[in-house]
């Protein structure tokens, strides 16, 4: 199998008459993180959705392990954990049930308990998620990302509604993921302090340039 590597060449997207971004090149190898920044509406989410194969760019190509996956992203999906703006939780199910029955995961009950404790959700584990706060739900969604044991993490505003303690925890989890040879693409409005030097892609400058 080819070395794990995410490549994007010359991505361009316009919505209506407005060009969101063009000539975006991305190159991520094992252990790399890419922090996408930009104003609201600058196309951060669109870029992340393109990298996940959920939508297609007007022009440009995306490669995973050397294969162009623009048309058929299935090879990537086995190694991808995607966190969107939505937490993908059912309010009628408990945190534990949401994690145990998410189709893409196959965790042991012990692994679920362990991860819930790690993100300090022990007391909330058996409550229906509709009674939990936004931040707690976000943390459960992060538990899902962790349990997926994927090579590539694509996180859209993972820090949304998280308190400062959880933010530090997420940073250390990201560091650990990258140390183990993982990759991450994420957007945030907050500054992120990672151990390694991550790449930064600012979408505003691309439009200006």
């Amino acid at each position, binding site marked *: 199998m080819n070395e794990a590597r995410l490549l994007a060449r010359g991505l361009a997207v316009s919505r209506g008459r407005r060009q969101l971004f063009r000539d975006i090149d991305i190159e991520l190898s094992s252990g790399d993180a890419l922090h996408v920044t930009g104003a609201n509406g600058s196309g951060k989410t669109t870029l992340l959705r393109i990298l996940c194969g*959920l939508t297609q760019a007007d022009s440009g190509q995306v490669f995973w392990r050397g294969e162009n996956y623009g048309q058929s992203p299935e090879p990537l*999906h*086995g190694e991808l954990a995607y966190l969107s703006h*939505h*937490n993908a939780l059912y309010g*009628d199910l408990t945190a534990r049930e949401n994690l145990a*029955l998410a*189709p*893409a995961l*196959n965790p042991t009950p012990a692994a679920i308990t362990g991860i819930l404790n790690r993100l300090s959700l022990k007391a909330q584990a058996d409550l229906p998620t509709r009674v939990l706060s936004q931040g707690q739900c976000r943390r459960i969604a992060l538990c899902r990302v962790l349990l997926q044991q994927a090579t590539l993490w694509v996180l859209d505003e993972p820090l949304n509604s998280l308190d400062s303690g959880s933010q530090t925890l997420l940073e250390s989890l990201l560091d650990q993921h990258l140390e183990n040879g993982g990759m991450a693409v994420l957007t945030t409005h907050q500054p992120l302090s990672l151990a390694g030097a991550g790449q930064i892609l600012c979408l505003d400058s691309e439009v200006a340039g």
Partner: protein
Amino acid sequence: MTTLNGILIRQLRRELLLAYRRRGDALTPLLFFIIVITLFPLGISPEKVLLQQFGAGALWIAALLASMLSLQRLFTTDHGNGVLEQLLVTPCPLSFLLATKLMAHWLSSGLPLVFLSPLLAEPFGLEWSTYPALVAGLLLGTPVLLIIGAISAALTVGLRGGGLLLTLLTLPLYVPVLIFGTGAVMAVSRGMSAAPHLSLLGAMCLVSLTFGPWLTALALKISLD
């Protein structure tokens, strides 16, 4: 680690657990089914001869309307909370995941309706001999209704006012199922065999089971792009 079977089993368990937690949601179409049926004798005529004549049609029309009730909810919740996006990035063909979802939906809403229908046929004075044709017709027809509805629901997910559009898209497509479903019961009550009608319904059922999930997946991908 995550085999195809494992993925589908977890999806099925999640959908069934959700249906159990939202029992009220599954009950509403059933109550609606009962109420619509009771409207026919009240609105048209309580005479036994007449009731016997339009009984099968009334039951089928009520079943049609009841199965439309829950269609809008089929994908809107999952769209709003981001589950659909997660299904799209699950390493498994979307059509398989949707087929599982539709199966759970049919088990929790279609099947109870099928079982309830003989009870409701009794007040219409339908003969006992027609019950097998009625139940068999509904057993074959309700999956078709659900799958036709699912394709339309997938096309209208995320649209404003999608609910009304969904009804307009779906109802005309339900007509063949209605014709052969009532036809089966009428045939038996006239002393003929229900087999031709049921065979056609069976054919529709097989075609929709084969192509339905795939078309639904296609429609969802278009809607969510």
